[in-house]
């Protein structure tokens, strides 16, 4: 791999689900660039299309009803969209792997964790059963679980421990890209910190790039290099952590930051963004955020804004991004 080509380049990705109630436009023209070794935070509300984006990178959108209608997913320079099922299987787990939100259900309850970790290795590497088992044991120790627990079943582990096992499964084949779909949402706060730290350490040690899907801006601030804010299936703002946090340009991102209660200000009520996410079967005309936007003008109601390039890589999908919103 040379450093010029980005590890992952998603171009104008569109995904829709066709249901009896109508067509759900889950992802509408997502553009993403991830460099090797980088951590990207994908932030957005429930239903913004974060998970759908992640699943389309792995080509795991349930089809039917889901379908990638257009766009390219360039992984290490190769477009994954036309890949055959067989070629795609070689990518999954080996080059790109995923951590799920709920470790309670992501592990098979009737297989020992040792078997589950070795399974990935045996699917991708030509190793004997005992070699794979040995490699799995070392990986388990690397995530901080003693090797003598290899023969135990998932229900004998606590939530945080299970997530460590899931991380071990995801990282054991040394993937180039790790997609973590809200990896800490199901865990309590103290364990969250431990798991995040573990992921961060392993990631730097193994040189894996990571896409972290979350709605927790605090987590993003702690471990991400770049941030993409997603709303109604679009990336509305993208940039380095510093740029997006300190030089916020999109009104939605501003709203997100505004809704976080501040520790030093005593407030009686939280400040949510008024309104709800638009119904993805009937997206509004123009900018999809306009019904909730305090700065909305006529232009926003009728025509979709294009990406406005700001400082460096920082861009925002808003007509007034350059002016800075007051």
């Amino acid at each position, binding site marked *: 791999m040379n450093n010029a080509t980005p590890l992952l380049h998603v171009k104008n990705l569109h995904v829709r689900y066709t249901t009896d109630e109508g067509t759900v436009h889950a992802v509408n023209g997502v553009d993403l660039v991830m460099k090797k070794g980088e951590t990207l935070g994908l932030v957005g509300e429930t239903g913004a299309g974060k998970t759908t984006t992640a699943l389309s990178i792995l080509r795991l959108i349930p089809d039917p009803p889901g379908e990638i209608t257009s766009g390219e997913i360039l992984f290490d320079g190769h477009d994954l969209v036309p890949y055959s099922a067989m070629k795609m*299987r070689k990518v999954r787990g080996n080059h790109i792997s995923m951590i799920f939100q709920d470790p309670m259900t992501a592990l098979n*309850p009737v*297989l*020992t964790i040792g078997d589950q970790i070795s399974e990935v290795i045996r*699917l991708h590497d030509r190793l004997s*059963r005992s070699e794979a*088992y040995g490699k799995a044991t070392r*990986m388990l120790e690397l995530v901080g679980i003693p090797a003598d627990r290899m023969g135990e079943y998932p229900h004998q582990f606590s939530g945080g421990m299970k997530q460590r096992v899931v991380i071990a499964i995801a990282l054991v084949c040394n993937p180039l890209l790790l997609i973590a779909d809200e990896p800490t949402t199901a865990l309590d706060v103290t364990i969250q910190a431990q798991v995040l730290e573990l992921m961060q350490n392993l990631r730097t040690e193994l040189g894996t790039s990571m896409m972290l899907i979350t709605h927790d801006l605090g987590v993003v601030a702690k471990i991400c290099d770049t941030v993409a804010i997603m709303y109604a299936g679009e990336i509305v703002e993208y940039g380095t952590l510093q740029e997006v946090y300190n030089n916020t340009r999109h009104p939605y991102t501003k709203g997100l930051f505004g809704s976080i209660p501040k520790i030093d200000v005593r407030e009686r009520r939280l400040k949510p963004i008024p309104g709800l996410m638009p119904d993805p079967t009937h997206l509004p005309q123009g900018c999809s955020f306009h019904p909730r936007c305090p700065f909305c003008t006529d232009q926003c109601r009728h025509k979709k804004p294009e990406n406005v390039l700001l400082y460096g890589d920082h861009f925002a999908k808003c007509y007034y991004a350059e002016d800075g919103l007051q």
Partner: protein
Amino acid sequence: MNELRAHEALPESDRMVRRKKSQLRETWRRMLKNKASLVGLTIIVLFAFMAIFADHIAPYHYDEQKLEDAFLKPSRDHWLGTDNFGRDILSRIIYGARISLQIGLISVGIGVAVGGSLGAFAAYYGGYTDNAIMRFIDVLLAIPNIVLAISISAALGPGLVNAMIAVGIGTVPIYARVVRASVMTVKEQEFVEAARCIGAKTPRILLRHILPNAMAPIIVQATLGVATAILAAAGLSFIGLGIQPPTPEWGAMLSAGRQYIRDHWHIVTFPGLAIMLTIFALNLLGDGLRDALDPRLKR
């Protein structure tokens, strides 16, 4: 990566052995805790032992007729008495264990294999596949089980193997539906998606991740099914389409002794008891097995 390499010197074979043993031992230990299933296991083992060593255990041969000794009550010479041809009932039950256990297990095996795979495919692929398979199953289900078995064995001709096939096919719809229902609930779970995520192929996902999780109702249904299969085979024998006399089959013995029940209770009672005991033991064993094999119930 450096840390990974540092551990490479550790002995791996040791861990491997310890783990395999402990898993088997764990299942066995939990089996032992469950007294009821142990009773079931003992009875099944006894019957299996009887079936295998019938030649050495049985006091008489199964078709040794002594017409002057017909209808003898249980005595020292004939522990369970004799039937209308003067054949020793105990010996016939011992030899019959061979036939009945074979029929029960093999026809259920056919049913589970055919029905199970149909059900699993239907549930996994869904859509048109599901519809096509399940409508075919519905057609099978619309025909009463025994009528289906009769027509199949009438077409194939009488005999042990054909009886097993006939009874087996008759039970296909039951297993197809049971397996389909449990696979459908399991396949929606996240670990199946996780398996897909690590690049596992469909057969692997089905066999390794979904089916083991869908096993509990199948085991219970199958152990109950052995009982039904033995009875169905007995029914076939009764109308002359199953096992041909003088082969001792418990169901056939039961139907043959039926006409003498008023005066000679022992002719039907003992084969009936044998069937009952086998079925009872199989049910106990099935329950115990399900509990022992399911790591989620581990205490």
